[in-house]
């Protein structure tokens, strides 16, 4: 059957299509990812094995020295402080963000939702540095907050240059992310499930705890993780608001790369460690995040 044969020749073979299709579709994003994510990460990974490297030095990987230095008490203290800031920020974002997202997603009238959401996301359009400076002028001893407190006869608060200021600054910076993701999750919440719970005898509080929270658990986990990761990587707020004892892993990494105490090897080792930690937690979230997604 010569005619059928020539027809086959014109058509791209199915196996080729099967390979080409994903290749063509993924190529642009793939190039982007490889150039701007994979390659730099590999460079950091390589640098992490070079002790005391500074800009311009030859890269000669030689052992795990940089990683061992992570376990020095001082470095562990810095990492512990980072975790404390990040966990604290996540908890505050949750406490402040959940009611807002709940109200926006479940209670607020539909036509107001977009406007209110916009208002909430607006701070994201300003520079993070500018926001930190704004907090300085609010929190400083004679700042806006204390003027307000004084005008109603309350004692002044000394928050700036201490941990509370860092938590305030980071919570403010990251709250929009928390609200946005939780809102997306809560907005999809099936109201009929809330009615079903009430129908079965659950008070509003019981409904919230036994139905709403489990329903938005994936969103809760995702938003908390996002806030946590961002808080872990924030070095502007700790530096500007945190005072003399606010060295965090992110600040240390920054100093090791672009600061006054360059050591790209140590900075890379700490970066690698953070990347591994963050990747692991994301992987865990994806694997165990959503029980409902399980199918037959």
């Amino acid at each position: 059957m010569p005619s059928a044969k020539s027809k086959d020749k014109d058509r791209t073979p199915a196996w080729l299509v099967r390979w080409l299709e994903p290749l063509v579709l993924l190529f642009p994003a793939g190039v982007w990812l490889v150039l701007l994510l994979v390659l730099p990460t590999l460079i950091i990974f390589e640098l992490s094995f070079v002790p005391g490297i500074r800009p311009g030095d030859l890269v000669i990987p030689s052992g795990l020295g940089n990683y061992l230095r992570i376990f020095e008490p001082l470095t562990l203290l810095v990492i512990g402080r980072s975790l404390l800031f990040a966990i604290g920020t996540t908890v505050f974002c949750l406490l402040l963000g959940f009611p807002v997202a709940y109200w926006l997603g479940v209670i607020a009238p539909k036509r107001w939702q977009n406007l209110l959401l916009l208002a909430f996301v607006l701070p994201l359009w300003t520079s993070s540095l500018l926001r930190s400076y704004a907090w300085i002028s609010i929190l400083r001893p004679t700042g806006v907050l204390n003027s307000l407190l004084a005008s109603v006869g309350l004692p002044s608060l000394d928050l700036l240059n201490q941990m509370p200021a860092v938590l305030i600054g980071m919570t403010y910076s990251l709250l929009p992310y928390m609200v946005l993701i939780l809102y997306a999750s809560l907005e999809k919440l099936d109201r009929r499930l809330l009615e079903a719970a009430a129908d079965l005898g659950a008070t509003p509080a019981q409904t919230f705890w036994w139905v709403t929270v489990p329903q938005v658990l994936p969103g809760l986990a995702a938003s908390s993780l996002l806030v946590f990761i961002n808080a872990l990587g924030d070095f502007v707020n700790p530096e500007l608001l945190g005072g003399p004892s606010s060295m965090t892993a992110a600040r240390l990494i920054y100093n090791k790369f672009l600061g006054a105490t360059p050591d790209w090897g140590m900075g890379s080792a700490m970066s690698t460690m953070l990347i591994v930690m963050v990747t692991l937690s994301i992987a865990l979230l994806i694997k165990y995040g959503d029980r409902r997604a399980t199918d037959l």
Partner: protein
Amino acid sequence: MAQTVPHNYSETGLNLGFDIELRKVFKVFNGEAAVRGVDLNIRRGEFFSILGPSGCGKTTTLRLIAGFELPTAGDILLRGQSMVDVPPYRRPVNTVFQSYALFNHLTVEENIAFGLRLKKMGRGDIQNQVREALRLVKMEEWAKRLPAQLSGGQQQRVALARALVNRPTVLLLDEPLGALDLKLRKAMQMELKTLHRELGLTFVMVTHDQEEALSLSDRIAVMNRGRVEQMGSPSQIYDRPHTRFVAEFIGDTNLITGKIEGAHPTMLWITSAEGRQFKVIPVDTGNKPLTSGAVVISVRPEKIHLQYEPPADGLNYVEGYLKNLLYLGTHVNCQLQLTSGETLVVQLPHGFEIPPPDTRLYAVWRPEDSLALPNDS
């Protein structure tokens, strides 16, 4: 929660045996009345259906009973006690939702145990009752599954079990079978009927499927535009519709518009628009008897006989030509093109030899086989 209401009934001491009473209930959404002055009395242990087209207010009525909506006006009583101020979680009713509303983060077992756990029931008791409920809906082997792993019919059974396990005073069913395919729906109808008989509970079902309502219910309320048009047994609703809407909505019928020419307690004389005379025996609807004005005559297709010659005096008839034949499995309907231009649907009797198309035929019915209804549209 299925708190059992004590049997002290209404404060007046009157026990009419009603589980649910709706008194002049109104519900207005954004200036639009979804329910306008509904009065319902649902007897203890009966299978009661609220039937109507979409948007008639039937689901809102059910939600008012469940407590998800508060009435704008009127009162809702459960076993004689006003429920208006009682939140849904304290009403002794449970609902089977239209789309089941199963908790997708819980297993079948956990879904069913949800209400019992809230009642702080002992672990062993919960286990027993859940097992019993699973047995009742024949879902024992699926106990550990998640709702997403079940078929629509299975989810329906779980929803039923989740509601029933709480032993509600009244079980509310919101289009419970709407999402199932025809065959499954028929099977589930049978099971619902059996469950109702075995449990002896009051069932209140909302449906738009008249066949489902007719076959399952002890009594039916037909709703239209926020009002109850008629309440009664299936045969009353079918054979003695009180309004043109009910006649049209329940089953198939032919409507002939006309005017009352003469009225007598035992007979109405009606002239159609084309001047043809009809006789109809009036039916007591509890309303004021019709004596004059515009009416429609409703004749069910199966009450009409076809013949080749005009009938003897005393019978109603129209003449027309045979047009389309509609094969419906158990019987055949045909459309008659009337000389007045309208069409009439007639159910052909069993064994009637089908004449060729365009045959001139006479459609004949007895005065007692048709109804005169006020032409309110």
